[in-house]
């Protein structure tokens, strides 16, 4: 095992997959010579050259179109949308073109592309640099949506995403870039569509995504001192969702809290709640509780911190449903 930070875990995944398969290439704004706005692709341009680590114009729609066309031609593009807030510019290319092309062309092609994008709070940079927009893509058939929370998950899942022959949206929480974690020295893959039980417990299940996985684990530590054992589940892949792991947990603990950034309406919390209500209603001893960001844009500055569910919010919610 070695200790690797989230950013480097992604870098390593890209490097290894590009070494393994010459059809894999990277494109996006400032990803090449500058090494990426967050330094994630550092060193790759030097190693693989300008054609395979391509700096593009400021054109999110064309960047995704580039990925769609190149994937249709048999390549495996990994393109970057610098801030997920900008992904709105490319919605047609992602949801109308990438998501549907295989289906509409009678299965005659596949589009093995990955769209990496930085989402979530952490920079205190305001309403156009902090959103969590995964719901729109979970809602779109033909796409897969992945959200790792640790360096280990990031590396293993990105490698799998690159090898997956479907379009994958790979969501990197910008607040996690510096966190460190253990990563195997030898090659490893994590399959898409499989959740991870990050902590076992018997009193309540918290399904958390992205940075909130760590918040939930912090809450769990505090609650443990009071004898309350939380089970923390990280779905890792939001679409297709590993319903089984979540349902098995709720069957055991009888209590469910879902914590995510992004707003409540039609969020991953809404989806998981519906699934458990449909397929595991009898498991529940208390109503489901969702913790999410308030239904408002995120303003600039330190006030951002108060707009994301924190450890205390989770602790309060757990105590409430266990009453």
């Amino acid at each position: 095992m070695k200790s690797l930070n989230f950013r480097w875990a992604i870098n390593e995944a890209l490097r290894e997959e590009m070494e393994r398969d010459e059809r894999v290439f990277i494109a996006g704004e400032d990803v090449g010579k500058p090494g990426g706005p967050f330094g994630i692709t550092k060193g790759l341009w030097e190693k693989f050259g300008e054609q395979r680590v391509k700096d593009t114009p400021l054109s999110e729609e064309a960047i995704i179109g580039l990925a769609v066309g190149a994937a249709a031609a048999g390549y495996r593009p990994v393109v970057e949308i610098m801030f997920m807030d900008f992904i709105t510019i490319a919605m047609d290319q992602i949801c109308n073109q990438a998501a549907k092309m295989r289906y509409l062309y009678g299965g005659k092609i596949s589009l093995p592309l990955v769209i990496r994008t930085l989402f979530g709070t952490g920079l205190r940079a305001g309403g156009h640099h902090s959103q969590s927009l995964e719901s729109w893509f979970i809602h779109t058939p033909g796409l897969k949506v992945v959200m790792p929370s640790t360096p280990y998950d990031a590396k293993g899942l990105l490698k799998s995403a690159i090898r997956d022959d479907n379009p994958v949206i790979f969501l990197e929480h910008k607040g996690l870039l510096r966190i460190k974690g253990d990563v195997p020295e030898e090659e490893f893959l994590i399959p898409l569509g499989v959740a991870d039980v990050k902590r076992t417990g018997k009193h309540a299940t918290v399904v958390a995504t992205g940075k909130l996985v760590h918040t939930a684990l912090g809450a769990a530590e505090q609650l443990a001192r009071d004898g309350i054992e939380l089970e923390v589940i990280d779905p890792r892949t939001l679409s297709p969702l590993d319903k089984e792991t979540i349902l098995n947990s709720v069957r055991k603990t009888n209590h469910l809290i879902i914590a995510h950034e992004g707003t409540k309406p039609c969020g991953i919390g809404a989806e998981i709640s519906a699934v458990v209500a449909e397929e595991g209603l009898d498991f529940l001893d208390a109503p489901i509780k969702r913790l999410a960001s308030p239904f408002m844009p995120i303003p600039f500055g330190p006030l951002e911190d108060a707009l994301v569910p924190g450890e205390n919010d989770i602790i309060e919610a757990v105590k409430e449903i266990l009453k």
Partner: protein
Amino acid sequence: MKINLSKKVLINMYHNLVLSRRYEEKLIELFSQGKISGWIHSGIGQEATGVAISECLHKEDYLVPYFRSRSSLIAKGMNLSELTAEIFGKKTGCCKGRSGEGHVAEPALGMIGAGGVIGSSIPIGVGLAYAASLEGKNRVVACCFGDGATSRGSFHEAINMASAMNLPIVFVCENNLYAEFSNITIQMKIKDIFRRAEAYGIPGVMVDGCDPIAVYETMADSVERARKGEGPTLIEAKSYRWRGHFEGDPCEYRSKAEVENWIKKDPLILYQNKLKEMRIINSKKIDEAERQARDAIEKAIQFAFQSPFPTLEEIKEDVYT
């Protein structure tokens, strides 16, 4: 650069022009009889550009089709039976009946990218060209669209990106003066779309879209440039659509006189006369071309009529691989 058109090319284009015209006529007839579900966007009158564009392409080159140009598909070797079945929504269609008329594709022949959102195919064409540049086998992309598509941001982003990256792609805009029901003066202040090329630092060329020889010469030159690594070109082919945006469109937005003026300059008749003048064809060859077209079309229509629709189970496949 002077391009010499061989007799083979001239005759090929003629055959494809005849076939495309008779095919459009047939589709219009069948639609009016209620025999086609969905819709038809007829390209009748505009066939000359498509036959010339595809004539310039090698089998391995990519074509991002302009939705109204069935002639470009035919000239690139699209199987007429599979195309017809697709238009009819049958499962034997080139897209298993899922795309219908609007976004026909045939990846095996390099025909990729067309879809129901006008202008969205253009960035996809740039992606195909990027793949071609990575591959290094001198493939080029013919990325075709109408005048309306050039109002999209996707057009700007794509052509700008292709130019900045010097990609092997030829952008071909068929300007038929109308985007759905809007005359081109509603779409843009400029009169000539090819002039936009200057904004991207690439050559822009205007050509008479009703003259297959002129289009061939222009396209061949641009394809050569792209293949040699000299980057993109924007070609504007001036033409006109004889019928409405879709079959059933009452066309209240334009005058009958305007339409009749263009029909007088029928590209098929003009080309036919030119080839007769050049002694490339005679009435015997004309009859032969017509007969071949009739037979091919009849065969394709029968195939489509006899093919089944996909089942409810079959249409659920291929969402993911």
